[in-house]
């Protein structure tokens, strides 16, 4: 692999096996976005750090948050419930679409936040799991 060359704002080339590859980069170092050949990568790519994606995955096993501002239409679970991976825990509505919130894995619900009909902000804590 050859050296990385900046060829424009957010645009870099790097030589791989004699071929020149163009890579696009944006965002701060701790949350970097990278595009190459129709694929997108996101994370912290500095040495000795795990990718942001995987850190996010691990966090999602402990709690679920609202992906966007939404209204809680229905809450299907309560504290202490054992839930299976993929099970619908809550039904949100945003932009006139229903958004099911599903369990990321088998777990025990340790807390449920919000009530039906409530308007919630993006990233609001919805369901927590016992680890």
């Amino acid at each position, binding site marked *: 692999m050859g050296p990385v060359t900046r060829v424009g704002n957010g645009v870099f080339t790097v030589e791989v096996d004699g071929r020149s590859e163009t*890579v696009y980069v944006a965002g701060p170092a701790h949350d970097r976005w*990278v595009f190459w050949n129709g694929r997108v990568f996101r994370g912290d790519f500095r040495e000795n750090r795990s990718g942001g994606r995987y850190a996010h995955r691990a966090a999602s096993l402990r709690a679920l948050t609202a992906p*966007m501002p939404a209204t809680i239409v229905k809450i299907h679970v309560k504290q202490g419930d054992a839930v299976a991976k993929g099970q619908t825990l809550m039904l949100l509505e*945003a932009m006139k679409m*229903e958004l099911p919130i599903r369990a990321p894995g088998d777990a025990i619900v340790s807390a449920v936040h919000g009530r039906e009909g409530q308007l919630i902000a993006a990233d609001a804590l919805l369901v927590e799991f016992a680890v």
Partner: protein
Amino acid sequence: MIRRLLIANRGEIALRIVRACRELGVESVAVHSDADVFSPHVLAADRAVGIGPAPAAESYLSIPRVIAAARESGADAVHPGYGFLSENPSFAAACVDAGLAFVGPPPSAMARMGSKIEARAIAAAAGAPIVPGDTPADQSNAGVRAAIDRVGFPALIKASAGGGGRGMRTVRDAGDVDSMIDAARREAAAAFGDGTLYVERLIEGARHVEIQVLADNHGNVMHVFERDCSVQRRHQKVIEESPSPALTAGLRARMADAAVAVARAAEYRNAGTIEFLVGDGQFFFLEVNARLQVEHPVTEEVTGLDLVRAQLLVASGEPLPWRQDEIAQRGHAIEARVYAEDPEQGFLPQAGPLLLYREPNIPGVRIDAGVVEGSMVSVYYDPLIAKVIATAETRALAIARLASALRAFPILGVRTNVPYLLRILAHDAFSGGTIDTGFLDREGATLVSVDDKEVPAHVRAVAAADDDTRHARAADRETQGRWDPWGP
């Protein structure tokens, strides 16, 4: 001729209409919510009027505010685009009452087509085959359940005022019917303000093929061939193309005749689309979209016609600029809708800034977008970022061209469906032209596959190399003038 046109929409379709205005010498007036003050459609138009806060209900969906904006700006016509108020007969009527030419069908024809139930009756009377269905007079759960029993499983619960797959549910057995009816009614009421439902037999293994029609005020009704929109995810179109790989010349001609007959029977005017299901050499009328469609560019690319210009001419009272025997399909065009959504998280709509957004410049590729680098993708509106339309001599070449355009279209800052689109284009069933409308929902899991998460070494190298601004500035100095003629 229309002198000054108010565009009651935003995003890519508003820009599309601004461009048509400019070519015709018509002045354009954009409207915008507080969230869209610096949006490309606002900057591109000759004039702009603010119509309220970010939520669409208080701006783009507010009939009084849009009409007031038209009056204030001295517009003499209104183009509704698609979505928002485009198929709202009260809005069309309010425009007419305010002395504004409405670029679309008259309110009466729109109301007839807007009721999916009445549209079915008109189509049947015009001789078009319709899908077996039932409209329950009793709209209670028991009434809708009885209609489902009459139609038989599998059935489709649909919203009379529906569109875009909202308020629609598939029921395969009696088990969960009540929750499906409730969900359909709730969604329909929220999206359209009308929870009226009807039931259709679900035709499985069918393709969705629609015929573009145009009608003027001089008795001319013509068709502009078909678009195949079988690549749908939960009834939302994802990829559209023309010609349809499923039609023979004979079937195409019969469908086009039926579409023209329906448009005539409905006393339709301006541009509209007659949707059909096609299977086993048969076709069934589905519904009429009384507006310009999102996917209209594929028709423009295979015919070389400008549908928006034709709309403006017809709305000005002029005859259609072409005769049926003057137009032809040439080559193949395919459109992919690039959405801000994350296929790996159940296609959740995404919001955020477009940190980097570079459209590819490729011959035979048209990009209709309403954003630029730095735009905010907001939670308030449809998450469509851009439509990428590739045209080539054959279907296979058009697919290859579209794939190569998507691979050269970096969008960073929000997750998009581009990797998902590329997997669809590479799928044997898609390239073979044999898919039906259930394809995406059946193949869903494999198409969002997350097995290529490994970050290639050279990608990691670039991402890490650019890890602080000091480094980037040093790189700037090294390469300045050599690579970037527009550099600082």
